[in-house]
């Protein structure tokens, strides 16, 4: 081979290398920008699931009702059940099927143990494309994701399989949270701090039924088949809410479906689980942390009855409990953001907190405040009702005219309060 020939080959090699470097730079840039620009809702939700080395015995699927209604960390602390809440806002049975299929594939790929139980909330149907983005943008592209996009998104398939095609124009909205997204570290649960306005609740009679939507039935069938094929037990639930009677009627029809298919189904709308629609809801549809604890407790009992293993003595128990302690700190830090008395009183009714509440009698005229104070009294808290004409005497010596004053301690630490807050009557007992 002549020297020239050697040079020629080397030149071609250089050209190829140069071409590949440009492609590599471009691809790297695209990858970085895709992650940076994409809506982070899904990433925040599922990042923990993707990267954990834990095994989950139970997976929860459904919509925002489940996100705000089931806390895996509480479930572990109280029942030793290792679970992950995979539900997502505005995602119902159809999307749940693909999320389950995708997560089971991830579990298989990572050689993690298959779950023993899948709990599916059968509420509503008809996902909208933005909601599907909220669920799916964090998942890497896969055949399952493509299948979901093909079947659920109509002409928006491209933006679902290539999210950058939708989000590239988000460059003008980038904020610090896009560079350092706050990943959900609580196994999928989201705490929604709020107490809905008490009002007319729409609750249908358990006997009223409506045919299950055909497509929904089809997808529940598919979830059932998927679970059966992997040896997973499927449990259907319906988390309470107080609107949309049509969905409630359909949920009542699921009793028949469950019987036909020999599935366990509990419609919590029709069960007395101690949920008070006046104080346990963020709004008409979503449980607040107080409601969530009740719902979680009920599910714990259900799963215990299904003989899901108690892992509190297992090798990952210490990690779970450490995370639970972080969860307590997160809840304490969230207290500091609360501006309204009702929400604050709801939030401090927490098994991990001890509160000393001073309240003027006149404040109890408010039905929500009255109920919330009653709850606190029933718990291990100290409530002092101050008669009219007398001033509250905050424990931390804070001066001012308050109608309600709360001093909150982390249980087991009465030396220094975790938070304290005074409220006045104006503007619905707003913070002072």
């Amino acid at each position, binding site marked *: 081979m002549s020297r020239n020939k050697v040079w020629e080959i080397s030149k*071609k090699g250089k*050209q190829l290398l*140069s*071409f590949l*470097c*440009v*492609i590599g*730079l*471009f691809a790297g*840039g*695209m990858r970085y*920008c895709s992650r940076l*620009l994409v809506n982070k809702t899904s990433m925040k939700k599922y990042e923990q699931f993707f990267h954990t080395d834990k095994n989950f015995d139970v997976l929860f699927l459904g919509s925002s009702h489940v996100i705000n209604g089931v806390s895996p960390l509480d479930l572990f602390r109280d029942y030793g059940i290792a679970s992950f809440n995979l539900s997502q806002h505005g995602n119902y049975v159809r999307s749940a099927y693909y999320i389950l299929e995708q997560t089971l594939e991830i579990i298989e790929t990572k050689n993690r143990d298959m779950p023993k139980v899948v709990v599916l909330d059968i509420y509503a149907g008809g996902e909208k494309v933005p909601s599907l983005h909220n669920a799916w943008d964090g998942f890497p592209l896969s055949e399952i994701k493509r299948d979901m996009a093909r079947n659920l998104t109509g002409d928006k398939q*491209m*933006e679902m399989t*290539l999210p*950058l*095609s*939708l*989000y*590239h*124009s988000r*460059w*003008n909205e980038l904020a610090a949270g896009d560079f350092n997204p706050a990943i959900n570290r609580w196994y999928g649960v989201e705490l929604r701090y709020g107490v809905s306005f008490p009002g007319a609740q729409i609750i249908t009679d358990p006997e009223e039924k409506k045919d299950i939507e055909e497509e929904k039935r089809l997808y529940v069938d598919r979830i059932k088949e998927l679970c059966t094929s992997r040896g997973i037990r499927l449990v259907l639930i319906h988390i309470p809410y107080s609107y949309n009677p049509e969905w409630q009627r359909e949920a009542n029809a699921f009793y028949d479906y469950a019987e036909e298919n020999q599935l366990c189904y509990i419609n919590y709308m029709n069960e007395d689980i101690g949920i008070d629609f006046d104080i346990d809801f963020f709004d008409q549809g979503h449980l607040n942390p107080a409601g969530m604890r009740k719902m979680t407790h009920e599910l714990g009992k259900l799963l215990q009855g299904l003989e899901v293993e108690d892992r509190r003595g297992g090798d990952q128990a210490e990690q779970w409990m450490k995370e639970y302690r972080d969860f307590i700190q997160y809840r304490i830090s969230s207290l500091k953001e609360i501006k309204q008395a009702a929400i604050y009183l709801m939030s401090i009714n927490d098994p991990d907190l001890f509160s000393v509440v001073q309240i003027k009698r006149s404040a109890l005229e408010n039905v929500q405040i009255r109920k919330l104070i009653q709850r606190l009294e029933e718990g291990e808290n100290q409530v002092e009702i101050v008669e009219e004409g007398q001033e509250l005497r905050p424990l931390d010596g804070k001066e001012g005219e308050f109608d309600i004053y709360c001093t909150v301690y982390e249980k087991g630490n009465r030396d220094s309060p975790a938070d304290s807050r005074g409220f006045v009557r104006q503007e619905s007992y707003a913070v002072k």
Partner: protein
Amino acid sequence: MLFNSWQYLIFYPIAVLTYFILPKKLKNLWLLVASYYFYMGWNPKYVVLLFFTTIVTYGGSLALERHRSRRVLFTVIAINFGILFYFKYARFAFSNLAWLCQTAGIPFESPDFDILLPVGISFFTFQAIGYTIDVYRKEIYAEKNFFRYALFVSFFPQLVAGPIERSKNLLKQLDKTYSFSYDRMREGMLLIIWGFFLKLVIADRAAIFVDAVFADSGKYGGLYIVTACVFFAFQIYCDFSGYSIIAMGSARILGLELMDNFNAPYYSKSIREFWQRWHISLSSWFKDYLYIPLGGSRKGAVRTSINLMIVFLVSGLWHGAAWTYLVWGGLNGLLQVAGKATRNIRGHIRRVLCIREEGFSHRLLRGAVTFAMVDFTWFFFRIKGLRNSVRVLKTVITGFNPWIFTDESLFQCGLDRKNFYLLILSMAVLMAADYGKYRGICIREKILKQDFWFRWLVFAGGALFVVIFGIWGGSYDAKSFIYFQF
């Protein structure tokens, strides 16, 4: 198939790779197949028209080479213009005829023309007719190889929006086939990235503002319209030149060189110069095949002016079958005629005022005045309906609202503050690049001579910039290139 479509992003690499893999004999045949497939991507039925135009001009040119007959030439031209007239102008002509008859009290009902305008029909018809005239003038030999000729008419990069190639340039290049060249690929890729920058980052972003203002011209009067017109000048320039540059880049990678359709037009210092720099392939087509046959400037000042007016009115009609296009063309003609007529007076005034013709300030003034005149004519290009144009022009004069530049009003017209500033910045980049071109500096060559790391950054960063800051995908329906409707 649009250049800014997923189909093209898949189609083009396949077309190129297959072209370089195939043996020489099959290369052009493959390009022909690919070109027809490209056209069918829009509407498979209308490929018949493309084929028919090809057959007629191919056969006609062979006949003309044997017998140089005016009758044959006119027949070929008449058939092709007949098709163009039917698809593009019949509705306009008959609706005006109906209006005339109605005014004159003659009963006449316009036939119903529910016809879809074939994409690029004006481009390939003009290209094929230009070739036929070249053969008639014996400037080239008639192409004997039907497939090669069919490829000349249908070559996909320039099929639907030009440049309107000359047989002397493109047909000669199709005599050969090309193997892969790394340098050509780099050059072509750079052109394609630049073309997409113009189309997606500037044109489609400007379109959002322009569309919002013109869609509600009752609400947005005064300086909103002026701003929208300035943006429209950039929109139409970047839309069309973006397409042409992508076409050039796509052809360059295949080994072919298409003509440059734009040469820094907004640096022109007269309307005449503007038309030497804007849509060069069409301007030169009109010059060679209409203006010069009409007598050009050889038959005195009056006849020259008439010839100019004819050319610009036809040019207006070429762009669209509507009175506003005629007004646009007519205005351009008038401005050019007026420019010629006042040349001596302007020179006299300059001398009296001791203004140096080549001084910066004078050149700046001429450039600004030319841009203002061009932009004024673009107003008629953009507006829908002559009556509407008069109404909107009145609001420009009466609705003096300079505060829109200081309060937040301009950011309420479809583009938020960041997108608005990005548009301004991108337009500045374009003008800087065009200044280089105007001064004879080829920035592309300069980039390609830089060190590897800089080139890599330009390629990868440029492409990424277009992907992120371009208007595409999602809920946004990529706008068709404006020039497709011609």
